[in-house]
């Protein structure tokens, strides 16, 4: 009996080693453990044996069964692994092939993207956002902002009028369209009023704001200028975003780019609002979204911003 078991073991091991396909495992299983299997046959002979011999044989057969089953299981795993490897090889892709585009997403206009950047920067600094009408009364647009009746800006040459009293204002200017001018432009005006505001606060606010929009490394400078609505008035330059301040075509070699006009609100305006200019102070600034967009993205011709050419819009 022991010899039979040993023979079965050796034969099974030999067949396992030589086995080529997973399905042969089923055959071997049948041959060993099936109804007519060799081990089954041996177990059937147990009836003739003594109790001790039976126990001994049973233990030996079980041991062999476990051993062979483990060996077959290991072989099965090998077959599985091999099959998977073959499948992986078959299914390998050319990863350099172009990807399949998702459902085409649209694009926000770069001006909207810039507008949101500016707006979010200001909101982060505690500003609240308001929208003014595009057509405004002459009084609100000029007189209350310290532009007297005969100020050149009120001329028909500079402002679109719709009748003697009204004019579209906030974002319009009589300007022939060219690479850097547009009759329509998007303007964001900032305004802070409080007691004890000063030019240093204006500088600090704008410096923070510009760095939020253009990046931490941008430097700013405030230089004297003139606007009827502010006194003192200033213009804010920022270090050229193209050359970093070394001087290039965009900054005309100066290393600086004019970015916005600003100043301490003219006392006449405070007075027009019923505030005592000795007690109250305010500052204001105006920044052209179109211009910031051009600078931020390096758009060479402002006309692109109103042509709505898909090849332009899909770049941003």
């Amino acid at each position: 009996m022991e010899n039979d078991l040993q023979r079965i073991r050796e034969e099974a091991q030999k067949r396992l080693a030589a086995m080529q396909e997973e399905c042969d495992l089923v055959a071997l299983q049948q041959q060993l453990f099936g109804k007519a299997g060799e081990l089954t046959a041996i177990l059937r002979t147990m009836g003739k044996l003594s109790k001790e011999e039976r126990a001994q044989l049973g233990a030996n057969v079980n041991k062999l069964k476990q051993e062979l089953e483990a060996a077959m299981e290991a072989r099965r795993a090998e077959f599985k692994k091999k099959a998977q490897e073959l499948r992986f090889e078959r299914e390998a892709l050319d990863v350099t092939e172009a990807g399949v585009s998702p459902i085409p997403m649209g694009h926000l206009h770069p001006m909207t993207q810039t507008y949101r950047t500016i707006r979010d920067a200001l909101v982060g600094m505690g500003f609240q956002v308001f929208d003014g009408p595009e057509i405004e009364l002459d009084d609100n647009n000029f007189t209350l902002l310290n532009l007297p009746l005969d100020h050149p800006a009120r001329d028909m040459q500079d402002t679109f009028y719709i009748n003697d009293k009204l004019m579209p204002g906030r974002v319009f200017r009589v300007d022939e369209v060219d690479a850097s001018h547009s009759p329509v432009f998007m303007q964001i005006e900032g305004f802070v009023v409080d007691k004890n505001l000063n030019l240093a606060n204006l500088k600090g606010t704008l410096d923070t704001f510009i760095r939020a929009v253009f990046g931490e490394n941008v430097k700013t400078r405030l230089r004297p200028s003139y606007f009827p609505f502010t006194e003192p008035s200033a213009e804010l330059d920022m270090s050229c975003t193209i050359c970093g301040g070394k001087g290039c075509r965009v900054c005309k070699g100066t290393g600086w780019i004019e970015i916005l006009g600003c100043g301490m609100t003219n006392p006449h305006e405070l007075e027009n609002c019923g505030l005592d200019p000795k007690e109250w102070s305010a500052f204001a600034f105006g920044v052209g979204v179109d211009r910031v967009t051009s600078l931020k993205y390096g758009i060479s011709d402002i006309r692109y911003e109103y042509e709505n050419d898909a090849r332009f819009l899909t770049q941003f």
Partner: protein
Amino acid sequence: MRLPKSWLQDYVDFNVTDEEFIERMMWRGFELEGVEKELKDVSGVITGKILSMEKHPNADKLSVCQVDLGDKQAQILTNAKNVFVGAIVPVAYAGARIGNHDFTVANIRGVESQGMFCSGEEFNLSDVEYPGAEVDGILILREDTPLGIPIEEAIDRNDVIFDFSVLPNRPDCNSIIGLVREAAAALGQKMKTPIIPHIEGEGDVNDLVKVTVENGDLCPRYTGRAAVDLKIGPSPAWMQRRLKEMGMRPISNIVDITNYVLVEYGHPTHAFDLACIRDGHIIVRNAQEGEKVVTLDKKERVMDKDMLLISDPQGGVGVAGVMGGLNSEITEETKAVFFESAAFKASNIRRTARKLRHVTDAAARFIKGVEPVNAYLALERCIELVSELHAGRIVGGTVDVCAADLADREIHVDVDHVNRILNTNLSGEKMAELLATIEVPAKADGNDLHVSIPHFRTDIESGIEADADIAEEVGRIYGFDNIPAVLMNGDTFQGCLAREFQAEDKVKDVLVACGCLEMYNYNFTGPSALKALAFAADDERNHAVKLLNPFGEDQSLMRTTLYMGMLDSAARNIRRKTGYGRFMEVGNVHFDLGGDRLPREEKKVGLIFFGEQESFYTLKGVVETLLNRLGIQGARYVKNDVACFQPGRRADVLVDGRKLGELGQVHPDVLGAWDVPGPLYMAELSFADILALAVDTPAFQPLPRFPVVSRDLAIVVPEGSESAHWIELIETAPVDVIVEKGRLFDVYRGPAVGLGKKSLAITFNLRAEDHTLTDEEIKKAFETIIRVLGENGAPLRQ
């Protein structure tokens, strides 16, 4: 304003580099517009001496010259007759440039020429400036001229001209004197301020000329002096040179004097031929309507009653502040001159110049603003120059009709307040010291700064703006760069974005997610575009706001809908074959309400789709998605008759019975007007309505706890009927279960259903709130639905 360096050096020592000077001026509010060399059109021209001249072997009129250029020798061909061996001449040697012409080595009839000789004209020189400069031929330079040096050096045209932009509040700096005053302060020096001597002269101008100013409001001051026994001729070299540096053309001594004083003092003066002032009486008055004057440029100007005229008893001799009359022009025969130096009101001159479409140099100065004290200084300067140039004999006395207050204004400034504005801590004494550098005298007395505003500083106010005005001056001189950047502190406010801005962002974001590119179109449109959209007579979109001063007819209206601009841009994309056909715009439109009322402004959301993949339903799908994402439920789509769309393919979007917007396929006539092939689909929705209906924070709906059963059916219905009607019947059928999410998923037309009919395949869901539906319940509900449909004329398709 141009500022020649040599002129600046008359008043200060120029002790820094050009770059440093430019930077300092920038910090004082004078931005550089440009720097020019005096001979800006000339480069690389050098002096050379002609060593020999031979006849060209193949050209009679040409000579072949060997020229000594100092460090090298060159062969130059010339046809000039005035050159000779030994002559020193300007040579545009290969590599030189004059104007737009680049000189290179040329081969002329077999002989090489390494450049050309130049004439005086090429350096804009007159005989007065350089003897022989106007000769017909080559400029022969002085015998002692070194060889091989740049021509600029040889003829002393080596100056540099700075051009600074002058801010509108500083008209005084549109003059050499005014700009130098600032430049001197920037250079840290005291300007050697010229003092104009009063030249007494002989006799009295008041015996020759009588001046009557009828409108003192428009002419606050009119001054005049005269000179007789004139010797009209060219002005001297130094004056010609400076006029040229300032971009002016020398004419004759008397005219040049007025131009010179114009740039030097920034005040326009005018020289009349005294003999041409009839009755010796000048009357400054409003013109009569239609009154005509022929100005110096020989053009007839038709005046109106708001314009100020300089006239004599018989008629106009000049348009005040704009241009003199031809009838009193200075000519070579002029023997006596009357210099007018007046202050005219800026706004009036501006209107006159604009109406006459003639903004002269003089008018430009008056428009920017002049002041009466400077008017007199300019007059005295004219007289001084007549004397200096020996151009005539000065007549004594002065005409001075003055309604203006000439005294310097005195103001009191709050030193503390100035420091508060600037965030500085300067004493009153320090402020006075700073102001003194720009010739604004001030004296400190504790917190009180007593400033006397000089006549030329018309920008500094005496009223409530005074502290701010002085703060600007002090800050400018102290240096904005020396003021630190400090963040605001105090009570903080929460920065926030109002709901309308958040909603607009969301609308745009959803549309972008739906594949739309965002457009920005101009707000202007024209009557033809509006007409092409063919809105019904009672459609408010016909009431466009008209501009009084448009660029042109096609931009003369404010848009009442986004359609025109979107169509323009769509047409552009189609023409350019950009390959994209899905766009949106969010923008304002305006409606004229008539009378004096402000137009009504409305924000619209527009969509325009075109291209093979698009259809009425892709557009509608995006509209539905937009409304859905904004939480707007229950939109119905009802056929409308908006004429810019194709009949049968247009609908209103209704929510709660209110029109939220519309959509449709663009009418072929509209396509024709924009000259684009169709089909195009457009929609426009009211942003205000979206905002009103949008649900910002949707309330949580519990998820269905029991399974949902989906059922399909196909019914045969009349061709003209709408699927929404049948889906509504299904969803409202009298059954005991919930019927929802009815959706059309197929339409069939053909022989199987018969002519005039169509088959609709509809899917819907059945469920109950509180239990799993039994087969029995489902069967019963389905049968009821089929019965209802049948009763309403929609039998199941067999």
